[in-house]
């Protein structure tokens, strides 16, 4: 029982990081109908920038965290300006956007490699307080709790923002129908740029939390989460924010439960992707997808 409970906690924790990563991913897809494959590279840069701020510039983490998020957001603006905005009017924009975001991902990763080197780097000891609770055989660290809380509150803020504020409503309007949004007097280009900012800032935040917890940052650390992030947004339904959160948790839990149930981890990733494959066949719109038919 302890074992299962500990595994569930493990899954909840890693799932919330996946969720936070995927929320940004899905936000852009919801608005533009385009996959932004550079999201993982921004995730990585977010973590590395925070590290640089803490280690080299000597900024405290409490300040470095928001600063790195903003920096990641600015990278998102750059990404939009270079790789997405010029393609938006093209008939194959969904496809070419995919490619140009891959190009930007390569460039970002090359920049990370050039600036930080190939060796893994870590936050200096004592950046975050380490405290561990042992409750009935279950181990929880303060950092884990903190990360789940930060991830959860960021997601709540985002959900409220999208649902309640004017800008949030404008984002949804652009996602539903760009032309109608223009007619309603919404500054579509501005909204799209803003969406990229928010999405990338969240991706950066996920990168920082990921980097803080596992404390092993490399220029290619985004690669391992990239595929999982894709799986998560499919699982939750492309473009759905609650879906991405739920999908992240479901994916995290499926990983740990595969280990817990089979007793070995050989099948962990295979099961996750097989589930993804099955979901696509049975319910392509995902768990919470809008089921909107995207006809050509």
């Amino acid at each position, binding site marked *: 029982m302890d*074992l299962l409970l500990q595994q569930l906690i*493990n899954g909840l924790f890693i799932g919330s990081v996946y969720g936070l990563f995927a929320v940004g991913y899905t936000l852009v897809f919801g608005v533009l109908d385009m996959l932004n494959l550079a999201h993982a590279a921004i995730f990585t840069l977010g973590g590395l920038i925070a590290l640089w701020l803490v280690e080299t510039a000597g900024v405290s983490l409490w300040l470095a965290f928001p600063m790195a998020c903003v920096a990641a957001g600015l990278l998102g603006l750059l990404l939009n300006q270079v790789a997405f905005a010029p393609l938006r009017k093209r008939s194959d924009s969904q496809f070419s956007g995919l490619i140009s975001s891959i190009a930007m991902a390569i460039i970002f990763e090359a920049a990370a490699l050039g600036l930080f080197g190939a060796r*893994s780097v870590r936050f200096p000891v004592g950046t975050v307080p380490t405290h561990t609770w042992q409750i009935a055989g279950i181990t929880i*660290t303060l950092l884990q709790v903190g990360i789940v809380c930060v991830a959860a509150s960021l997601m709540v803020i985002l959900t409220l923002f999208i649902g309640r504020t004017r800008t949030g409503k404008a984002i949804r309007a652009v996602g539903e129908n760009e032309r109608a949004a223009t007619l309603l007097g919404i500054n579509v280009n501005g909204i799209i740029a803003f969406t990229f900012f928010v999405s990338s800032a969240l991706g950066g935040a996920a990168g920082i939390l990921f980097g803080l917890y*596992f*404390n092993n940052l490399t220029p290619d650390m985004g690669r391992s989460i990239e595929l999982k992030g894709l799986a998560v947004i499919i699982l939750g339904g492309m473009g759905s924010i609650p879906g991405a959160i739920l999908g992240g948790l479901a994916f995290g839990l499926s990983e740990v439960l595969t280990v*817990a149930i089979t007793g*070995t*981890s*050989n099948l962990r990733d295979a099961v996750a992707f097989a589930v993804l494959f099955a979901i696509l066949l049975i319910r392509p719109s995902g768990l919470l997808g809008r089921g909107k038919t995207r006809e050509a």
Partner: protein
Amino acid sequence: MKLVGRALMGVVIGIFLLSAVATTAFSASFKMGFVFSMTGGAAVYGASQKEGASLAVDQINAAAGSGLKIIPIFEDDASVPQQGTNVFNKLINGNKVSIIIGPTLSNTAKITDPIAQKAGVPVLAISNTISGITEIGDYIFRDSLTENVVIPHTVKVAKEKLKLKKVAILYGNDDAMTKATYEVFKKVLKSSGIQILGEQTFAKGDRDFSPQLTQIKAQNPDAIICGALAEEASGIISQARQLGIPKTVRIIGGNGFNSPGLIKNAGAAAEGVIVGAAWNISSTAPLNVKFVNDYTKKYKHAPDQFAAQAFAGVHIAYQAAKASNGGSDRKALRDAMAKIKNLDTVLGRFSFTEGRDANHIGVVQEIRDGKFVVLGN
């Protein structure tokens, strides 16, 4: 403007001619090719290797005076076997090197070394630890101890000192090196009568090992046997301690653990980790002390086993070249390599076995007070 352009052109041509003259003037030199993974997944090791090898080359050339010098040619295979193949062909047929040192990854070596064997170019592997490398042919040598040598020794020492009875295994199953580590461990554990409670795997690039470690914790082993590269190893070690696996449950690793980065990244959690190695940084042999000092001075961080093996590799190849009359004849160089005996290197007193593998004594180390110290021989 035009004038400036012409002047520049003149300078460039001048430098070119000078360098051509320079290389022909010192005929007492030979070309040594290096194939390291300086980008891609194995870039961490490639970086160390390049530093170790460069240090050796610089020191040798500085000391050579008018004697035999090395012309080093460093190439990056980007951790991709395809590019390794391309680089080998270029070094062998284009640069016409006398010997190749590398490549970093065993998987790449399995594809590239047959090319060199066919062309009759000696290869000195400095970090390939899986079996079946030197078996490729009589031109393939290695100065890295294989897992087959290191691990049985590690298990023997660890069993004696820790009274191991039952262990759990955690290894990366999508990487040739970590998988090989696992297989050797498994065989040795079985033959020494230690019970294996369970086997867990992870994939390259994973950061989260808590599901596997949670399973292992529940099995309550005496030790955790770990086949992982340094990248993942530090994560495994810190997460194991975080999950409350007590320090008395030692973590025992293979060759991949041999990196100061492990201690740096895992911090206090790394205390007590046991690893078998070909080289120990705290060895007091004068050659080694000098190497560690020079290296640390030049690169501002301590060397690891990969740097040491690269450093030793250059010296071994240089000795063979000297013995074979300048090293420009590949066949003669190969024969001289095979005759290397009791050469003093940073790895200790070095010879090749009949099968052209490294024949020197490994050490079993444990991490104590943030340092690799010898646990037993």
